[in-house]
């Protein structure tokens, strides 16, 4: 390790001449640290849109598949099904409880829900795909936020089988 200018004071005329190669001796990184998998792994996919029900109660939901190695998440892999209104619920909870600026959701498609359309409205394949992509971007932004990760609602949304909307809001602590 080069500890630079400690000794060369007499010979060198300018301080920048020494400083040009000077550095603070680094701590040695252990091989375990160097080769261990990074501790920042978090991937969330939104996939498999399925339309349920018939008539007026028809809705589409999506599979939220999460893989991570962050200790704050209870399970390292999970898969749940969520619909658009669940995302809206999550966004509302975060907006209220956390101090973060929550990103916006892909827009609500009010016009597509009007009757007598020539296409499938909100069940049109291209629309569902567009929305799926938007939701994926949204949930990845939110779940990666250090302050959002402390919120219980995020964990309920990502990992509980059913979203319990009468939950007690609170903070998570890493196990």
């Amino acid at each position, binding site marked *: 390790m080069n500890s630079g200018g*400690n000794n060369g004071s007499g010979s060198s005329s300018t301080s920048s001449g020494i400083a040009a190669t000077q550095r*603070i001796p680094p701590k040695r990184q252990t091989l375990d640290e*160097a080769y261990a998998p990074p501790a*920042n792994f978090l991937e969330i996919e939104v996939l498999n849109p399925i339309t349920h029900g018939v008539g007026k109660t028809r809705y589409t939901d999506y599979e939220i598949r999460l893989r991570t190695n962050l200790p704050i998440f209870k399970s390292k892999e999970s898969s749940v099904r969520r619909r658009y209104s669940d995302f809206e619920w999550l966004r509302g909870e975060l907006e209220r409880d956390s101090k973060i600026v929550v990103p916006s959701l892909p827009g609500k498609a009010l016009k597509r829900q009007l009757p007598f359309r020539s296409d499938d409205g909100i069940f049109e394949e291209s629309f569902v795909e567009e929305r799926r992509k938007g939701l994926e971007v949204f949930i990845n932004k939110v779940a990666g936020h250090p302050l959002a990760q402390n919120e219980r609602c995020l964990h309920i949304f990502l990992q509980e089988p059913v979203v319990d909307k009468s939950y007690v809001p609170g903070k998570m602590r890493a196990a």
Partner: protein
Amino acid sequence: MLIFYQYDIAFFGFGQAPEISIKLDGDDVRKTAKIRSEDGGQEVHYLFYDGEPVSGTVNIAVKKRLDHQGIRIEFIGQIEVYYDRGNQHDFVTKVKELAHAGEITQNTSFSFDFQQVEKPYESYIGTNVKLRYFLRVVVVRRLSDIVREMDIIVHTLSSYPDVNKSIKMEVGIEDCLHIEFEYNRSKYHLRDVIVGKIYFFLVRIKIKYMEIVIMKKETVGVSPSVFTESENIAKYEIMDGAPVKGESIPIRLFLAPYELTPTMHEIANKFSVRYYLNLVLVDEEDRRYFKQQEIILWRKQDKAIRHTFLEESEGNEESSPSPGSSTSKG
């Protein structure tokens, strides 16, 4: 180097306003300095230090007879706050009478000499405030005085600071990012080099890059009416990509290329200029994590000027602080 200070106002119909110029003694050997001007350009003026005498001659070239009620020259150090333009604060004023009321019929020179002029502050042109020194010749007349001004630049010098600990700190976001940063000093001179390192204890975010920003904060006024202006002087990327636990990132940032002034603290109770190192980490979703740390900047004595302090300041300068000797937690 020749500098002309002739701001002639040709009064309508009279092409015969006298030409007034100020010539400093020894201006052929005196150094000049640059300063950023208000419009963003650069001005070049003669350079002075505290205590130096200011002397020279005033030349008045007349085209016809000039009646006057007296001629004087003033040396002025002035602070001007931009939102209060009409109200300047003169912290130094020296006046020499050059002539009593009378008339000038031919080209005339007056010599002047201000001995040991106090110049306590450094010249500064900022966003909201300006501190300048100038010589002003006033020819008093019945209707309108004739005024000529000549700016000079003043630099304040400091010797090597007594205490110059390194800055070492452990910061982070709980369970998310823990780092330790270290800068080799807390006080840097204007052509110094910031040597430091960042050590990662815990990384649970996906970092894209890391940079150091030199921030200047200019504070004008006294509370409660304080105006603060922040400006990013430099952005310097020190890391590209995501580190893991145990990695050290070296920092070496040369200050010389940037337009910096010394740190100024409560100048005449009017304004302050402070510098901060802002360490910024940006993650893949463009979230920014940062830690600001004030550093003191000072103007090092030029070796040619003060020989007496040369040895001492050199000796201190090269001994870099031993790592880990001074730790401040914050």
